[in-house]
């Protein structure tokens, strides 16, 4: 087993990994920026190395600084957490060439599954359902018309080189196509130097469903069930749960088998998440894969009892899934119990969503039965303005969804943060919402809670 692991991250996830290492008897090295001098991850690691100034590019995203810290502390492995360098294949390669084990998939698999367009092709080739659409680049407007006629309106046309919504258009009917196609083409050409467009069917008001997988380095893959993460604001997840209400046991078994087969073909190792859209008829379509630990992994841990971070470390150490999860590889998955929900508590105003950095002057963390708090916040601690606004993950587990919700409500009521604004009042509103309680969810769910924007 590794003797010492460096955690290339900060905040609650750095602490999460430190916890797993401590429980496994592995020494830890924290890295921190000058803004995080008094942060708990630096406090609780066995060693802590300052790697740069507050700006992420100069510290947590600074590959030479992180790798140097690993070298001077003689660690065997690096855990990247989520965000920052966790999906950076180059970083994984640098670790490899420095003979430091990167706790995650192989760099080539990260590249394949982590890059949107290639991942879609790869997913299709290994049997995952993808959204109906064009086979690659559209030759022109007439092909666009033909493909749209085949898959049915509404459709999305997207810039192949694109991102950030530029070169992207929703087309609702045949009549709209000519104008919107050329507009997208022009915009894409101006923005990216390439007017190449492709097309996908548009799913309106989809649910966001994702499956958690683990693969060992001996060709074995298992899935840990799914999560529903439809409660999002601007693609930022706010609430996640497991299991997902619309997934029946039979469908989970069927999709699980497809996913395990697909990931086995891909040669996927370590933890990963496959994200799907679910259309109103209940069909799942691959959208992307996250080749790392997910923020919302605790809901899966709560229902399966599997410590995902320990599993990651043991996989990276070369252990087999059948030793990590005895007797469960053959059945593709693990047993689950009850229902878990996670609320991401952000330091931001719950109505305007503006971030709120500063000193936490008063704090009461909820506890008691069925409540888990993953956080690096403490009374008199400071939330620096340079990083993600996530300050705590509040997770509750109950025998069923209703109990998990009741427990979350009482935990939110007992979660007091003074000194900075938090999203707790927003979460309280969502948890009390009838649609949420009934499980009538979609990625459009949060629209009702979002302030109406004034348009110039």
């Amino acid at each position, binding site marked *: 087993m590794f003797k010492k692991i460096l955690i290339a991250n900060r905040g609650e996830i750095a602490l999460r990994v430190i916890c797993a290492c401590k429980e496994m008897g592995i020494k830890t090295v924290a890295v921190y920026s*000058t803004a995080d001098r008094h942060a708990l991850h630096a406090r609780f690691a066995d060693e802590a190395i300052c790697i740069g100034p507050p700006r992420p590019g100069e510290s947590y995203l600074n590959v030479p600084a992180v790798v140097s810290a690993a070298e001077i502390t003689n660690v065997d492995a690096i855990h990247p957490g989520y965000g920052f360098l966790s999906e950076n294949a180059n970083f994984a390669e640098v670790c490899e060439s420095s003979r430091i084990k990167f706790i995650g998939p192989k760099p080539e698999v990260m590249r394949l599954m982590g890059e949107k367009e290639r991942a879609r092709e790869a997913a299709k080739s290994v049997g995952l359902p993808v959204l109906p659409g064009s086979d690659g680049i559209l030759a022109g407007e007439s092909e666009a018309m033909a493909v749209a006629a085949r898959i049915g309106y509404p459709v999305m046309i997207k810039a192949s080189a694109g991102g950030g919504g530029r070169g992207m258009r929703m087309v609702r009917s045949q009549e709209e196509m000519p104008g919107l196609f050329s507009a997208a083409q022009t915009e894409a050409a101006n923005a990216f130097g390439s007017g190449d467009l492709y097309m996908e069917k548009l799913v309106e008001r989809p649910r966001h469903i994702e499956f958690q997988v683990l693969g060992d380095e001996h060709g074995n893959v298992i899935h840990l069930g799914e999560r529903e993460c439809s409660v999002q604001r601007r693609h930022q997840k706010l609430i996640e749960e497991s299991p997902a209400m619309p997934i029946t046991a039979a469908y989970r078994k069927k999709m699980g088998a497809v996913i395990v087969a697909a990931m086995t073909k891909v040669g996927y190792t370590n933890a990963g998440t496959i994200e799907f859209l679910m259309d109103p008829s209940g069909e799942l379509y691959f959208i992307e894969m996250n080749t790392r630990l997910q923020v919302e992994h605790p809901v899966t841990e709560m229902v399966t009892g599997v410590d995902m971070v320990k599993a990651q470390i043991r996989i990276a150490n070369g252990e087999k899934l059948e030793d990590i999860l005895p007797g469960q590889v053959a059945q593709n998955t693990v047993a689950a119990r009850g229902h878990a929900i996670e609320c991401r508590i952000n330091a931001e105003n719950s109505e305007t969503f503006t971030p709120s950095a500063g000193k936490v002057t008063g704090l009461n963390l909820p506890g008691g039965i069925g409540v888990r708090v993953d956080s690096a916040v403490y009374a008199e601690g400071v939330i620096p303005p340079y990083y993600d606004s996530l300050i705590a993950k509040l997770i509750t587990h109950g025998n069923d969804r209703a109990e998990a919700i009741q427990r979350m409500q009482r935990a939110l009521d007992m979660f007091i943060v003074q000194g900075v604004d938090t999203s707790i009042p927003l979460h309280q509103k969502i948890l009390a919402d009838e649609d949420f309680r009934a499980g009538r969810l979609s990625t459009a769910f949060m629209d009702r809670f979002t302030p109406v924007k004034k348009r110039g």
Partner: protein
Amino acid sequence: MDFESIRKLIDTLIEKHIDEFELEEEGRRIRIRRGGPPAAAPAPAPATMAAAAGAPAPLAAPPTPTGEEDLLTVSSPIVGTYYESPSPGSPEFVKIGDTVEVGQVLCIIEAMKLMNEIEAETQGEVVRKLVTNGQPVEFGQPLLLLRPRK
């Protein structure tokens, strides 16, 4: 108020544990706040390595004034391993008592197999070296003290 009065004032404030003090003569305004921070933080600073300088040091290792007389601290701009000579066995870049010119190499920090030369940003005399050859250093860690040429 002359320098000596200010110095005496500061000494008094320290001695009496005054954390804040304001004064605004003529119109008059005074403000004093005593005693430690309103509450102790549960997490003391990490004690594993020497504390880096208070302000984040920009990349070219500019000297920071130290508390002692008027010495300047040269801090490490990166994480890595400190070397005082270009290669094992060769003489050190600078010795205590040497006077260094702007741009002169003071030491090397090795990071990811790259040797990064740390150059002097001010003219001055090397008063003390704070790390030993081959020692790992973190970002912002003080490397040596210079007495600037007046």
